[in-house]
């Protein structure tokens, strides 16, 4: 294990733990308003200050972490599921099926993802569930291509021929015998995918197209902060810093895992 994996993993686990343990880490909840202390700067009682309705920014960030992390993880699970399914089918069967699936991937790649997401959100309406599903449905192309290439190279190995010879079903060969061999790249993709999904969700929520108030998300705390950048810097600085730290740690983790699973790169670094 290298340093990058350790740093990234520890940071990611800490973030998830603090999101889960939100009620233990703060004595305020995310929606109690107190107009008398609105926009007060960070002090010992409210370590990240309060927002325009007098809500504790730190608590809103902790509860926002729950939502942002959940959206990120579920979205990636959806996209990984679609990508693994389409990629392995295309890679294993080849020929016409491969051609059809890959042309579909080409088409998806041509429409800029954020525009596609914007369009879908406008038609389906913004909500936590919709945002998760839409991000998942629009970001599976990379993993599909990756899995396809991996499956194509693994299926040439002798043990796959052996599995065919003893008459195993294709489904069994793909998911029981090929898949375990390409788990590495899948993990790498999913780690980068989480950071990408968190970034997309926060961007959408920031524009009012993602998680809707009163539910806090790192992105929509920033939206409110945007109107007070002249007076209340803490409403802009801390939530954005949280997004950055989350994205950065998942990216480092992904980077470390990529080196770990790719022996050629490891040799190069020595």
């Amino acid at each position, binding site marked *: 294990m290298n340093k990058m994996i350790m740093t990234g993993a520890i940071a990611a686990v800490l973030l998830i733990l603090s999101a889960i343990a939100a009620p233990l880490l703060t004595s305020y909840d995310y929606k109690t308003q107190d107009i008398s202390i609105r926009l007060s700067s960070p002090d010992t009682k409210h370590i990240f200050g309060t927002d325009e309705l007098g809500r504790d920014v730190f608590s809103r960030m902790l509860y926002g972490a729950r939502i942002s992390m959940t959206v990120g993880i579920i979205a990636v699970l959806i996209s990984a599921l679609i990508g693994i399914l389409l990629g392995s089918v295309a890679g294993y069967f080849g020929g016409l099926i491969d051609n059809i699936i890959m042309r579909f991937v080409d088409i998806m790649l041509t429409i800029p993802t954020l525009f596609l997401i914007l369009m879908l959100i406008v038609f389906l309406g913004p909500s936590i569930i919709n945002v998760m599903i839409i991000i998942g449905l629009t970001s599976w192309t990379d993993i599909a291509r990756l899995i396809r290439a991996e499956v194509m190279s693994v299926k040439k190995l002798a043990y796959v021929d052996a599995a065919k010879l003893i008459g195993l079903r294709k489904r069994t060969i793909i998911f029981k015998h090929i898949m375990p061999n390409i788990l590495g790249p899948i993990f790498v993709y999913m780690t980068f995918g989480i950071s990408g999904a968190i970034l997309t969700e926060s961007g959408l929520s920031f524009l009012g197209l993602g998680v809707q108030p009163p539910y806090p998300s790192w992105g929509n705390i920033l939206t409110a902060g945007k109107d007070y950048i*002249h007076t209340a810097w803490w409403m802009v600085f801390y939530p954005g810093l949280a997004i950055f730290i989350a994205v950065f740690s998942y990216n480092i983790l992904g980077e470390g895992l990529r080196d770990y699973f790719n022996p050629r790169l490891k040799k190069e670094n020595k």
Partner: protein
Amino acid sequence: MKQYILKRLLLIIPVLIGITIITFSIIHLTPGGFVRTNMEMNVKVSPDSMERLKVLYGLDKPLYEQYFKWVWRFIRFDFGESFIDNRPVLDKVLERLPATLLLNLVSLAVIFFLGIIIGVTSALKRNTFYDRFMTLFTFVGYSVPTFWLALILMMLFAVIWPILPVSGITSFNFDVMSLGEQVADVIWHLILPVFITAFGGLAYISRYVKSSMIESLTQQYTIAAYAKGLPENKIIYKNALKNSLLPVITLLGLSLPGLIGGSFIFETIFAWPGMGRLAYESAMTFDYPVIMGTVTMAAFLTLLGNLIADISYALVDPRIRYK
């Protein structure tokens, strides 16, 4: 070469058909069709224009017939009229296009210029402090949310240290400036947006150039050049650099969709009068024809970017042409 370009152009047709199918299905995703949804949400739509819309989109006809009619409009670049001001969608999109292209092309130029320099120097100084610093620096840029960085810089430049403009593409007194002043004014407004976009995009290019450069430095022709006794500068900058930059050309086209895709969050913050902001504004006002128009235009630009990348790659690398 002609044959290759022709083949490449023919490949666009199935992709175009696919785009129309996806866009069309999304329009019809909403229960009751988008005209009704719009009617419920937008008080500005009169029953009269509802009827006109229904006729325009032929919503009473069977789905396949609607699709072909829609594609026929699509081919003639007729996306209908905006719900908000009844102007043709194409006009609205086209007048926003220059600002988006200007921002993205300048950013792309900066990203490639700096990315190649960072990539090459990191490859030459592998595993030194400089290399590690640059890796971290570009990695931070890759991870930082652009809209947050934009807000922080706006805070810095608008409130604390007002030397750079933080919104729009021109100053309020743009109309009375001379041509030279106008150009300077636009460049002045470009600095912050381009800096933020470039910071985010550097990692990808510099890493690619770095590994490509390392690869060509270990190739046999490089070893042969050393053996021949060529001066090191010549080997690095003539042989290795030239060969490692070839694949970078394809990245030009490929990085366009990411930039254009990110532009709507970005343009909205900076009040940049581009296509992304138009897409966002029309999303907020449920102006469906304009949303469709911007999505189609974004896809079209991406397609064009990929085409240019492929053709320029074939131009510089004969192996591609004869495959």
